[in-house]
């Protein structure tokens, strides 16, 4: 449930690659506890938007604020508040899951690191593979290890870029359970996905992004995902 405290705010966010506009003058406000799912076709600028919200990419114009603090690339403190799960895991193949988490924990200045690692690994169901090298894990396990990494420093804002990509149904189920736990009312989550059904399950808000803009924004409000799917196609095809 949303408490009303503004956590994530983007104003006039714009990014272009040469003459190609990826994100076009986009505004976004999210309160604590909200779970926004952004869907849209390939090339809609969803991942670019997420990269700018995470501070991995500078906007061409516009600004992003987290908990009232504008992302300033000269200072790094705001990075403590953001956790990102991308389709790339940011993990080192030749290090164990535990070593990877330990490494990122040190970079983020996590204090109770050993306890935190144990707790995160339990949460994603990887305690027994803590000492396995990442290269020996299945894709689903890697994704869960990446999720543990993204949540290690207890971020206020969690950004998920295609978290279900390449997962089999069993692995998707495990990931969904973990993501469901993120809806603890304290975290603000933005998820980008192609998968409408999985994207809608957890969302408190939904946005359909086409050509760098939100062309539709709202919530399901009891409507089935089939209704949303037909709306999605109408929006993407420009019929709304």
């Amino acid at each position, binding site marked *: 449930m949303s408490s009303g405290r503004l956590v994530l705010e983007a104003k006039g966010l714009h990014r272009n690659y040469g003459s190609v506009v990826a994100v076009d003058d986009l505004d976004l406000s999210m309160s604590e506890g909200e779970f926004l799912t952004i869907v849209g076709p390939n090339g809609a600028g969803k991942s670019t938007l997420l990269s700018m919200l995470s501070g991995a990419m500078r906007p061409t114009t516009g600004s992003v604020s987290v908990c009232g603090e504008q992302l300033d690339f000269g200072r790094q403190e705001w990075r403590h508040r953001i956790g*990102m799960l991308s389709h*790339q895991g*940011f*993990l*080192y193949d*030749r290090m164990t899951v535990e070593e990877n988490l330990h*490494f990122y924990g*040190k*970079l983020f200045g996590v204090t109770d690191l050993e306890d935190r690692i144990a707790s995160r690994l339990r949460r994603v169901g990887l305690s027994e593979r803590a000492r396995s090298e990442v290269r020996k894990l299945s894709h689903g396990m890697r994704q869960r290890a990446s999720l543990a*990494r993204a949540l290690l420093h207890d971020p206020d804002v969690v950004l998920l870029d295609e978290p279900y990509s390449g997962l089999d149904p069993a692995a998707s189920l495990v990931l969904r359970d973990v993501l469901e736990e993120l809806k603890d009312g304290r975290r603000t989550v933005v998820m980008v996905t192609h998968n409408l059904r999985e994207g809608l399950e957890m969302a408190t808000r939904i946005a359909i992004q086409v050509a760098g803009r939100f062309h539709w924004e709202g919530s399901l409000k009891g409507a089935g995902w089939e209704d949303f799917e037909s709306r999605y196609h109408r929006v993407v095809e420009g019929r709304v």
Partner: protein
Amino acid sequence: MSTYLTQVWAILRKDLVLEIRSRERVGAMCAFAVLTGVLFNFSIDTTTVRPNEVATGLIWMTLIFGGLLGVGRTFHLESQDGALQGILMSPAPKDAIFIGKLIANFVLLFVVSLLVLGVFGLFFGIDLGRNLSWVVFVLGIGSLGFVAVGTLFAAVAEGTHLRETLLPVLVFPLMVPMVIYGVGAMMPLLSGRPFTEVEGNVRMLGAFALAAVAAGAVLFRYVVED
């Protein structure tokens, strides 16, 4: 330990752990050093030249070419699974990331430089005993300057499609002062001259290394940030 030093140590430790497990870079550098020594041994007639003078230049050139093999791949470690982005999205200052990688590269290159010295000492019959500690000191300073330039430009090259092809073009022109002062310091030392004779060259080499480290630490963020 301060947060900054903890972050530097985390990067340094991670790079060394990955290198110990893969042995990709140090293996390539050592193989290059030994094979180059062998080839020069057969291609130069040491009875017609002064071995100390020829060997000094060859040691530095071998160090630069071999070092480029290892230092040039320093960001390949990060390219797997987007790990560089993961590091850049952490609160670790960019200069801490640079310093951590620089120290890791220095450790690897310094080990290789000792091997190069041993190989050329053996093949060219150089008496290393008299000034060995000063020669190692000079090689250490030179290695530091080289890895500072190499680490920065490896980051530049990693962001282009040319990668290793581009790296020598960027790095070699900046190595000219290092070669001039490094050879200028080491040649007399290998001939048994006292350190006081080469102090000026060593100071210049040290100044070059410090300037390269400082410039790298400042410029690194502009190279890696989008």
